[in-house]
């Protein structure tokens, strides 16, 4: 059998591997202009904003998107995120290496950001005692320390909603950890966070894809990574699941409008991954990689076309 496999291998080897370098006219020109554009410092080319949508554990796909952008040398100048996208965004803006982002995404548990356990879940269902998302703050501090927004390597903003006023609040200064916690504080499950005289819940309720937050940070051109749900996959079996479903549907409706203001979208097909489906973290990241890989050439072309004015300056003596 071993000899048979060896012969089979020789059959396989007879086929040449597909060439990976894009040597088409468009491919070569894109690569050429890309090098020229990305060699420019931040002030001499349009500011690129990277936006991460909400999406609970589906947002692990953002890590896959970041991986592809980094490999392509995409210049990300400012970052914004909502809910789970705020956590990924905060860690990325703090300069966490890609390898660590993968480890964190793969190790995600529901209890990573909350005091979720059987006892507390029972208290929630029987006595209306909401869970606490305090562990999110601890998670952020354990990873990047007690940093403020101003101390991050890239400007970053995240979004929460004030339950008193219904306003979407964009945080971009001050202490980071409580703001990120507020951004991913699911209403109806986690107790609202009291911070800066506001009563805050998950930003995904009002601002699923915070493109406006990136623009507030100065982004001229925005690439959004969107991890929407496909709610037709799930049939809620209890109160919690119904609540999650409603939040997801609301998010999808919001996303539909917000997507229009992004310059470029990457949408990993993770819609069938549930709120707490931690066993599918790797799949979510891989889908993020694949979706971004398929679209990265087009994203580069869009950014180049957006930046032609600053390129033209180099061409005329």
């Amino acid at each position: 059998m071993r000899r048979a496999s060896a012969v089979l291998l020789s059959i396989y080897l007879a086929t040449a591997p597909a060439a990976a370098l894009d040597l088409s006219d468009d491919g070569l020109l894109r690569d050429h202009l890309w090098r020229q554009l990305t060699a420019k410092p931040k002030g001499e080319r349009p500011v690129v904003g990277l936006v991460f949508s909400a999406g609970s554990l589906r947002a692990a796909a953002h890590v896959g998107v970041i991986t592809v952008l980094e490999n392509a040398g995409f210049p990300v100048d400012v970052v914004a995120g909502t809910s789970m996208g705020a956590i990924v965004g905060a860690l990325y803006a703090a300069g966490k290496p890609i390898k660590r982002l993968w480890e964190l995404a793969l190790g995600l548990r529901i209890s990573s950001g909350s005091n979720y356990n059987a006892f507390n879940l029972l208290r929630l269902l029987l006595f209306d005692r909401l869970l606490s998302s305090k562990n999110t703050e601890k998670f952020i501090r354990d990873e990047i320390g007690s940093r403020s927004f101003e101390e991050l390597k890239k400007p970053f903003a995240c979004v929460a909603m004030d339950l008193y006023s219904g306003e979407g609040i964009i945080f971009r200064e001050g202490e980071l950890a409580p703001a990120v916690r507020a951004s991913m504080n699911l209403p109806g499950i986690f107790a609202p966070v009291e911070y800066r005289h506001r009563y805050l819940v998950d930003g995904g309720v009002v601002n699923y894809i915070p493109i406006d937050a990136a623009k507030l940070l100065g982004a001229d051109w925005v690439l959004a990574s969107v991890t929407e749900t496909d709610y037709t996959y799930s049939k809620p079996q209890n109160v919690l699941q119904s609540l999650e479903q409603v939040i997801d549907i609301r998010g999808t409706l919001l996303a539909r409008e917000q997507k229009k203001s992004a310059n470029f979208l990457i949408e990993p097909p993770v819609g069938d991954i549930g709120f707490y489906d931690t066993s599918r973290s790797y799949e979510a990241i891989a889908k993020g990689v694949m979706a971004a890989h398929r679209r990265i050439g087009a994203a580069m072309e869009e950014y180049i076309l957006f930046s032609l004015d600053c390129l033209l300056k180099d061409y005329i003596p």
Partner: protein
Amino acid sequence: MSAALAALIALLAPCQGAILAPLKDPLSISMSLFEKGEHQQVISILGPESLQKLRGDELRRAYFVLGNSYEKTGRIDKALGIYQLGTNLFPRDINLLSELARLLQHAGLEEQAAPIYQKVLDIHPNNASAHLGLAEIDHSLGLLERSAGHYEKALEQLSADPRRWRAYAEVLLEMREYKTAELAVQKALQRSYDPQSLLVLAFIQRASGKLSAALATLAVTTDPQADRVRALWLLEAGEHQKALAASEELLKASPGNALALWVRARARLRLGQAEAAAKDLQSLSQNTAAPFAAKVAAEFARRLR
């Protein structure tokens, strides 16, 4: 390719010599025909009735020969069906699994092929063809780290194959692991001094900031793409006169070539020949074979006006 297949069939039939003498049973006849390249006849002989009479190892071999015959006659859907049936009956047969995965991969169904290669690796963790298949699939899906890992495993057994070293180097180049990529492509060049590997080396050198070394590498490669790449990179090196001359040469050989038009337009702009540059850009903006280049040219032409 066909010699290798014939050798495989021979290996799969250890007592083929004894069976071949009378040539009575359909499998022996099919194998003999297969070796002669009579694939259509193999398909007619190994019909459903013949297959029903076969058992165990004979049936396994019959599926293999039949699948290959369908593939050779260009009926890929039929070949896939046969391998699928075969792997359902013999789920631990590495040869049938490998053939099914390879066929799916080459049919562009990479996401379906990957779990089958993985099954092969579950049975035989060092199977080089499965590692290669997964390395190529992961590369095309963008899963670069995993692809590099599979190439490393495959290269433990295939270290003599320069094309695999080159493919590995390309993955490393995309991962921005320039030093390792250069080492890998040097391994390819040590095994066979081929123009494609030199081209990859030039890309690695340029990516690691050694543009003049990259241009020197391009100058010695005979790869047909090298002249186009070189003309473009001369612009990056600020050698506008040379770039202009290189683009003129390219346009002589292929008038209307999109990349050459771009290079000439840019060189002309830089050399103060704005009107001629605008003409090139105008002409490039009509190019339908290179839509991105055409868009860029149209925008530049508009701005120059």
